[in-house]
Each structure stands twice: as C-alpha cells, then as structure tokens.
C-alpha cells in the first residue's frame, strides 16, 4: 500500500481552496458553537441518536436542504459558465465534475432524503401508528444515507470529484479512461447510501402492512401513504439492481476486473442496462410520493374529498409496473433495432395514460370545491401546467424515432428538469409549507412564501424553457462551452438570467424559515389549516413523541374529516389511557454510519489493507447489535394525561 500524502488534498484551484477553507471554518464554528452553548449532550441524546420517526424525518430534511444548496450552487456554476460563449470560468474538467456531482446530489442526496424525510414525518401519523416498524433500523438508514452523502461531497476537496456524469457510463467511468479515484467516490458512496435507502423501503412496507390503525383498510389509506407503499415497493425491487451494478463497477475500478471495460470482453452496454433498470424506476421513486403530497394538499385546500380515489390507487400501481418496463428508452440510439425500440416506445408512452388519469382527478377534485390559495396549494397549482409540459415532452422523447433527434441534447435536460422540479421540488415545498405547523407548531410565513413562489416559478421557467429550443438548435448536453458562431448564446444567456431568479427564490425560502422561526405566531391547534382531512391532524400540535394517546378507529378514507363531521370533540376518557410502549434511543446507528464512512473512504483511495481492517468496525457493530436486548420503555399514564390535557382543554376530560 502506497499512500501519496501530497496528493490527497486537491491543490492549485482557487474555487476549491476557497471551499476547503470554508469547510474548515464551518466545522470549527459548529464545534465551538456547540461547546460554548453546551449543546453537545442535547444534540446527541435528543437528535443524533433519536429513533423518533419525526426527528429522523427532520434530520433527513435538514440534510436535503443542505444538499439542495450544494446541488444548486453546482447548477448556478454551470449556468454562469455557459452564460456567454467561450467562457473560461470553469474549464472542461471542472464543468464535467460539476454536472456529475449536481446530478447525483440532486437526485440521491436532495430529492431522496427530502421525500424519505417527509414520509418519515407524515406516513406513520397518517396511518395512526406510533412509529415505524423498525425504529432503530430507520435511524441506521438515515446515518448510512448521511455517510454516503458526506463521502460523496468530500470528493470535491479530497481526492477529486467523479466526472463521468450522473449516469457514470462505462467504459468512460472505468479505469481505462478515468484513472483518478474520482469515480470511486461514485461507486462507493452511492453503495453506502443505497443500503440505507433499501432498508427504508423495507421499513416503510412493513410499517404500512402491519401498523395501520384499526379499521384502516388499505383502500381507506390516505393517498400519500399509498404512494409511500408503492414507492417503497419500487425501492425494494430496483435498488438491489443498482447495488449489483455498483459492486461490479467497484470491482472493475478497484480490483481490475473486466465487466464493463473495453479490454478483455467487457460489456459497456451491460452497465447502461443495469443502471437504467434501476434509474428509471428511481425517477418514479421520487415522483410518486410527490403525487401523494399533491393529492393531500389539493383535497385539503379544495375542501373536498379526493376525486376518483380508487382510480388514483390503480394509476400508481400501473405506473409502478410500467416504470420497470421502460428502461431501454434511455438508449434507443444504441442500434438495437426497430422492433425492440417499438416495444419500449409503447411501454413508455403508455405511462402517459395513468398519469393523465391522475391529472384529471386532481382537476376534478378542485371542481366544485372552494380553493384556498395557501402556500402549499400555490405550489400544487403551479405543478399542474408545468408538469404537463414535462409530461408531454416526455411523450415526445418516448417516440423512439423522434428521440434520435432529441437524445443527448438540452431538449432532454429541459424535459427532465420539467418533470423533476415541478414533480419533486415543488412537491417538497408544498409538503414543507403544509406539514410545517404540525411538526413545529407554527406556519411558515405566507407573505414571504409568495415571494418564494413567484421568484422560483419565474426563475424555473426562464431557466429551462429556452433549453428545449437550444436542444432543437443542436446543442448537446454536458458541453462546457460553445462558440460564438454557433448562435446558441441568446438562449443560453436567457437561461442564465433565469438561474438568478431561481437562486433568489431559494434564498427567499431560507429567509422564510429564519423569519418564521423568530416571529411567526405559535399555535397548538391540532388542525391549523382548518380543512385537513387525514389522521395526522387528529393529534396535538406539535405532535407528542408517542403520536396518539389512544389509537383512533377509522371508518372511512379521510378519517379526521369524518371525526369532525361526527362532531367528535376530542373528548378523551382518561381511564382509556394505558402506558405506551416506545423504543429507546440508540447510538449504534451513528457508530455504523461512521464505520461505513471510514471503510468507504479507504476503499475509495484504494488502500485495501486499511479498508479491510475498518470493515471489521462494521462487523463489530453488527455483532453488538445482535446481543442487544433493549425492550424499550413505557410512557407513564400521568405523562400522557398531562400532555393531552394541555391541548384538548380541561373541559373535555369528562367521559363521553
């Protein structure tokens, strides 16, 4: 093992040096701050080791926001670089690294954690559960995702960033063409995060199958929980494919095997197939929970039951099945022949049908409703026309023969941003504004929310709409610059202007969070929006750690709406309250995350003996876990009564 000490840190680039300094300063700042305010213990015992699904959800979301910032800065750097022709702000190598990390971070470390965080917060409450099925596993999922994200982000300042695109196509991503360790970061970091995601998927499925409140049949489950179930199924089916692909890729890169190489009979298209066998379902993994969020929001703020509930469920089931059958549309151009391309064109375009059903159902949910333009509803409304553009351009791309002209161009980049941003980011915003008061006991400010909304929407369309035309002008994606004669600059420049608005929109969101934490009116009302329909609004605000004092009985979809209609005034008979069994916190997942991070780091640097030794750290953690006999603890009745009395009011303590 030969360690080249002088090459570990990346040197000689002002941007990277700046980040290195910023990172060190931030870390010192955090450590000093925590020590000064004596918050170490609080942080450790209340958050980092907490198995409470709501807190884990919050940690996921904080991570998602940070990664959105990082991915967004990458996006802005690309837009700055291509704002004018022949720009030299980034050179080719840097641009390649930036779009690679942008793509990976946005999808795997922004979209996924945000949605898994929101699922963690809302889903157990919606189905009337007290936690997920495996609380400690849930925390482990978080720490593995976090470890993967940290390892991946480290590549920017230590060792070199991956530079083969978020698709990391071989043979380019193999050692024959990228001999640095940059792409090792991709293979190893995504593997670690992927294990965490897979466990989340299993956890959510078991939670939904086993822990629904009495009377909540599957067909009475809120739509967001339905989409969680289906998304988790896709995770469990699709992620193992990625696991295998990454493993083979790691073997190629670190141990010199020839699965995907040019030399010795490697098959580069095998990677492309495995990648998209996971990759296409992956985009539905992130889009389905978003559909669920919109379904909840649109019903709440139209004051109406979700239109066509049954067909909505059928639509997501059909979408999930089709999502596994379309992967070849990412490489129609590999010359596999018209018959195969026809089949995959058909499956791809068929997805438009269930998606259309959902669109119309949302529209008809609003019809005859009373639509309130609150912040979550605004994002839902904006979603409909913008996602429509994403959807119809998706059909255009799905038509294989036409795709020969769109493939690998900015038309494609415009299309998938028109699906991912309205489809995921808008939904995340809607969810944040919607569930924020439930979690924290105050709303995000509506007026600043309007700024956030308009800046982001104008920015988004201004940035990405011109890209459709750039693609039709012949601009390939992933080009770090273009010549003046090419005539591409007007639209590129327009698009760059849009990015400024996008950044301002994100800043408005951050400011809104800050402002609302400081000044927004506090509330303990269980239903601060007044028109909510599902169970999470039937308990205290902020939600107590045991969720429900007594698990509610469910008789219909929209369980909470039914309660309100039946004039159930939340009287609770204290005699019905029993001690509640809850899981204890655990530091082991933090340890496991650290162990994976260390082993992963050594593996990335190809220091095999060190990696092997640190793999024992992982095994040690697993062994420790197998000998743990912690049965959790009971929340005493007095504590529950105390909590419940404060939000229900004394008058409701008479037995019914």
């Amino acid at each position, binding site marked *: 093992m030969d360690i080249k000490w002088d090459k570990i840190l990346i040197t000689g680039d002002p941007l990277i040096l700046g980040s290195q300094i910023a990172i060190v300063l931030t870390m010192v700042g955090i450590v000093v701050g925590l020590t000064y305010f004596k918050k170490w213990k609080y942080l450790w015992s209340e958050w980092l080791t907490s198995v409470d699904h709501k807190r884990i959800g919050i940690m996921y979301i904080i991570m998602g926001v940070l990664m959105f910032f990082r991915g967004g800065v990458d996006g802005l750097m690309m837009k700055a670089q291509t704002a004018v022709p022949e720009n030299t702000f980034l050179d080719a190598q840097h641009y390649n690294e930036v779009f690679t990390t942008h793509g990976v971070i946005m999808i795997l470390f922004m979209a996924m954690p945000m949605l898994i965080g929101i699922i963690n917060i809302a889903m157990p409450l919606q189905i009337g559960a007290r936690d997920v099925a495996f609380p400690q596993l849930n925390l482990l999922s978080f720490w593995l995702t976090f470890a993967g994200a940290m390892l991946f982000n480290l590549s920017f300042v230590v060792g070199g960033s991956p530079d083969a695109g978020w698709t990391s196509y071989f043979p380019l991503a193999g050692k024959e063409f990228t001999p640095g360790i940059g792409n090792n970061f991709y293979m190893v970091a995504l593997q670690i995060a992927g294990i965490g995601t897979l466990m989340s998927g299993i956890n959510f499925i078991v939670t939904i199958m086993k822990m629904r409140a009495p009377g909540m049949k599957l067909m009475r489950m809120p739509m967001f929980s339905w989409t969680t179930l289906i998304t988790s199924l896709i995770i469990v089916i699709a992620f193992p494919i990625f696991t295998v692909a990454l493993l083979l890729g790691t073997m190629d890169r670190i141990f010199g095997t020839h699965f995907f190489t*040019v030399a010795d009979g490697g098959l580069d298209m095998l990677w492309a197939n495995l990648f998209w066998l996971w990759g296409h379902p992956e985009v539905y993994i992130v889009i389905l929970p978003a559909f669920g969020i919109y379904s909840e929001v649109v019903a709440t703020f139209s004051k109406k039951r979700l239109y066509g509930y049954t067909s909505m469920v059928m639509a997501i089931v059909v979408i999930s099945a089709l999502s596994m059958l379309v992967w070849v549309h990412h490489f129609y151009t590999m010359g596999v022949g018209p018959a195969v391309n026809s089949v995959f064109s058909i499956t791809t375009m068929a997805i438009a049908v269930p998606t259309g059903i959902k669109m119309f159902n949302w529209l008809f949910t609003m019809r005859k409703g009373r639509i309130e333009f609150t912040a979550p509803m605004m994002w839902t409304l904006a979603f409909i026309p913008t996602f429509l553009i994403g959807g119809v351009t998706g059909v255009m791309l799905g038509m294989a023969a036409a795709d020969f002209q769109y493939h690998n161009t900015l038309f494609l980049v415009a299309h998938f941003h028109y699906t991912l941003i309205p489809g995921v980011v808008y939904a995340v915003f809607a969810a944040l504004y919607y569930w924020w008061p439930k979690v924290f006991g105050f709303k995000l400010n509506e007026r600043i929310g309007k700024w956030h909304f308009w800046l982001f929407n104008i920015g988004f369309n201004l940035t990405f709409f011109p890209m459709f035309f750039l693609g039709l002008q012949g601009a390939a994606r992933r080009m770090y610059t273009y010549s003046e004669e090419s005539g591409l600059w*007007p639209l590129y420049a327009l698009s760059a202007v849009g990015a400024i608005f996008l950044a301002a929109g994100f800043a408005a969101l951050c400011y809104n969070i800050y402002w609302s934490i400081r000044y927004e009116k506090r509330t303990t009302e269980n239903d601060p929006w007044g028109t909510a329909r599902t169970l999470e609004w039937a308990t205290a605000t902020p939600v107590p750690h045991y969720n429900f004092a007594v698990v509610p009985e469910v008789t219909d979809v929209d369980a909470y709406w039914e309660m309100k209609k039946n004039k159930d005034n939340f009287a609770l008979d204290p005699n019905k309250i029993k001690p509640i069994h809850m899981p204890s916190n655990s530091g082991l997942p933090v340890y496991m995350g650290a162990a994976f991070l260390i082993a992963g780091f050594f593996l990335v640097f190809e220091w095999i003996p060190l990696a092997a030794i640190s793999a024992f750290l992982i095994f040690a953690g697993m062994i420790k876990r197998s000998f743990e006999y912690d049965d959790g603890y009971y929340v005493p009745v007095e504590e529950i009564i105390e909590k419940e009395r404060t939000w229900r009011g004394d008058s409701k303590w008479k037995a019914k």
Partner: protein
Amino acid sequence: MKKRKSLLLSVVSVMLVFLLSGCEMAELVVFNPKGPQAEKILDLINWSLVWIGLIMVVVIALFVYIVWKYRARPDNADYEPPQEKGNHLVEIIWTAIPFIIVVILMVPTVTTLFDLEEVPAGYEDQEPLVIHATSADWKWIFSYPEQNIETINYVNIPVNRPVLFKLTSAGTMQSFWIPALSGQKYTMAKMETELYIVADHEGSYFGRNSNFNGKGFKEMEFEVLAQSPQDFDKWVKEVQEKAPKLTEEMYAEKLKPSHLGRETFSNTHLEWVDHADHHAKEYLNPELYRVHGYPGKTFTDENNDIDNDTENSDHHHGGDHSGH
C-alpha cells in the same frame, strides 16, 4: 404588487431584446432537414406537436376555468363543497382519450422506426456508399474502404446518393449525429451500428458526438460536405493521388486522447484494425487521462497487444455485431 409588475416588465424586456437580436440566433436545425431521414423524423415530430398542442390547450383551459370558477371568495365562505367520490363514466372517458392519442402517436413512430433502418425511398436503386465512422477521444475518423481513403474530422459525401455509415468506437461510447441529415446513433467499441443517410441538398452540415466522453467532448465535431457526384469523384481522385499514407504507428499516435485538425490519407486504418471486431486490438492509454486529484491504479497496460490478428479484419466488415 407594483414591485412584481416592474419585475415582470424587466423580464419581458430582456426577452424582447433577445427576440430582436434574433438574427444572430442559431436556426432550429431539427426543423430544417436537408435529407429524407431527417425529414421523416421531422414529419413525426410535427405530427406529435399537433396532438400535444391539443392536449395542452384542453388541460390548461380546464385548469384555468376550474381554478378561477371555484376559487375561495369572501362571499362563498359558507359554501360546503359536495364530497363526491368520482364518476365511472367520466373516469373511463379520460382514460380512453389519452389511450387513443397514444395509439395515434404510436403507429407512425413504429413505421418511422422501421423506415429509418433502410435506404430511403426513391434511392433504393443506387448502391450505397459505405463509410466507416470510427470515434476516438476526441476525433472522428472516416474510412472509405472502396475508395481506400481516410479522413479525420470531416467527411465528404455525394449528394442524392445513399450513404451507409458503419459506426464503431476505438474507446469510449459516443454518438454520431448530423442533425440536418438524420437522427443519431451510438458508436461502441467492438460493436458495429449502421446508419443510412442521404443528403438531398449540396452543402456543409454540422456533425458532432453528442454522447459525453470526457474532457475533449465539446470539441468533438466534424463537418459533412455534400458535393455533386462529379466534385466528389474529383476529390476522391485527388486524395488517392496526393494524400500521404497512414501507418499503424502514426495511427496509434492519433488514437491518443487529443484534438486533431482535418487530416487526409490515401489508405485506411482498416488494413490493420477494425475496432468493430470483437477481438480487435485495443489502443488504450489510461495514463494519458490523468487529471488533478488522487491517482488510482490502472490495470490494462500489460495486455495491450494481445489478440492482434490483422489478417482477419477484412471479413469482419459488415458483420452482425449491430444487434448489440
């Protein structure tokens, strides 16, 4: 409110400036085809635009109508919306109509797919000109086996004659794309894909690799010059007579990651290697791809020159590797 208006105004004015300076803007090359293959694709695109336009208009109209009509107003504060579950008939209708539109778009997609694999209609009576296009980091190599000439980064073709491009790569995966003439297709090492192209106007067209392949990707462009048959023949003759010969050593040098200008030779590299062949010799130079950052191990050096059976390379041409 005022602020928002001025914001909008500035955005609109920026857009206007761009529209007025439109003369400098590139044309939408996909909408300006110069050959039957690109025309066929454009017909399909236009057909899809009609239906997609229809969908957009209907859905957005419905959206605006519903949101406007059912918005919350102070005077409907007591309105209690009906809790409807759905309506089977309506749901069946909005499943059936998109389904029909999908079929309407699907049929021409399939026929176009099959059409694109063949010599375009009206040109079947001519023998296609075969050109091997080999992509390498970061250049395009065109070999004319019949004429026994080779060019780098440009390709001349006779107008109104079908050209069969046999595509392969010496290393990374790339995509061969001449938007004015046809859609793109991948080039892959040790595989061969085929693309028929006809240019029905003389002129110079822009071609490029559209599939990202590392540092020099952006510059990987080439020029297609569609000439009259006489000019083409004259050019071929001239090259055969005047251009230098390519040797394997020179060739190996050219395959190293680099940018080359235009070059011309009076023989082809197919004499010693056809990269489409499953057992083709590799010309890999991992050490030349080092960039900043920590260096990883490389593995391929030692097997660099196994499997070199040059005498076989001829009958691998046009083999059946295109099915990958």
